[in-house]
């Protein structure tokens, strides 16, 4: 029960921040991608910088570990397909959920599409996630590393 509750808690914070930063509005995303507004890029870069510094410090402390994934063709082709959908709708999976949460009806066709797209993929029975850490270090190995 606790991991689910923790996941729910992080999700709520994530959803509030996505909504508060305006990511729910397609025009906010579009104006960024047309280089008319810098907010998205500053927001994104500061998120990556914070996570990166925090994770590197935690790794040095032996609390977390990961194995970076090598580039495969699917990372590029998948992101091309993803970028087409994102570019047309100016919504990605997180903001689609906050659209639904905010009661925006346009989120419904988007959600139906995403669930169908995911279904088309997972019925093949391949698991592609996570791309960036295929051999996660478990807590016991992290403890051994710290010892």
């Amino acid at each position, binding site marked *: 029960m606790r991991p689910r509750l923790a996941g729910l808690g992080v999700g709520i914070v994530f959803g509030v921040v996505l909504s508060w930063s305006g990511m729910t509005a397609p025009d906010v995303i579009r104006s960024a991608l047309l280089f008319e507004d810098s907010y998205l890029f500053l927001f994104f870069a500061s998120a990556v910088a914070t*996570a990166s510094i925090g994770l590197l410090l935690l790794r040095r402390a032996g609390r977390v570990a990961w194995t970076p*994934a090598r580039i495969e063709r699917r990372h590029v082709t*998948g992101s091309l397909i993803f970028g087409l959908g994102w*570019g*047309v709708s100016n919504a990605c999976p997180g903001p689609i959920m*906050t659209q639904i*949460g905010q009661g925006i009806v346009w989120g419904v*066709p988007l959600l139906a599409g995403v669930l169908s797209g995911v279904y088309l*993929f997972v019925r093949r029975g391949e698991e592609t*996630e996570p791309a960036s850490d295929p051999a996660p270090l478990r807590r016991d190995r992290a403890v051994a590393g710290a010892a």
Partner: protein
Amino acid sequence: MRNPQLAWYVAGPLLGLCVIAVRLLFNARLGVTGGYSEIVDRVRHRSLVFDWRAWLLIGVLIGGTIFALAAGGPDFHGYGWLTRDVGDVWVAPILVVSGVLIGYGAKLAGGCTSGNGLSGTSLLSPASLAATATFFATAIAVNFITKALF
């Protein structure tokens, strides 16, 4: 009421802290697509017992609702350039197709804007850096093309 946009130097680090929290809690990436995937996979096998990834996704939805209740709902009507420049009847079908591309593409690439873009990039993962560069470039190109065409 027009919603105030949280300053990027507050919003960005908060999102970064979410990524760190997921790594500490689950030794995993924060990836929103993983939540969709978990729900689709469980329902496909006739189960409604979801793991933390699905609950994170449900949390994102609740976060949207909490914000709407606190700040007075979304500050826009219609759906961006689609309802402005494309016929109304086309918007929903276009959004369904976009959603399919988003869902399928994110699964193939092993992550979306959060899984590859935020989490993978902050790990300096070459795969995620390539994915992030690709989807940003593609989405930028699509927006310039649609702006020129419509």
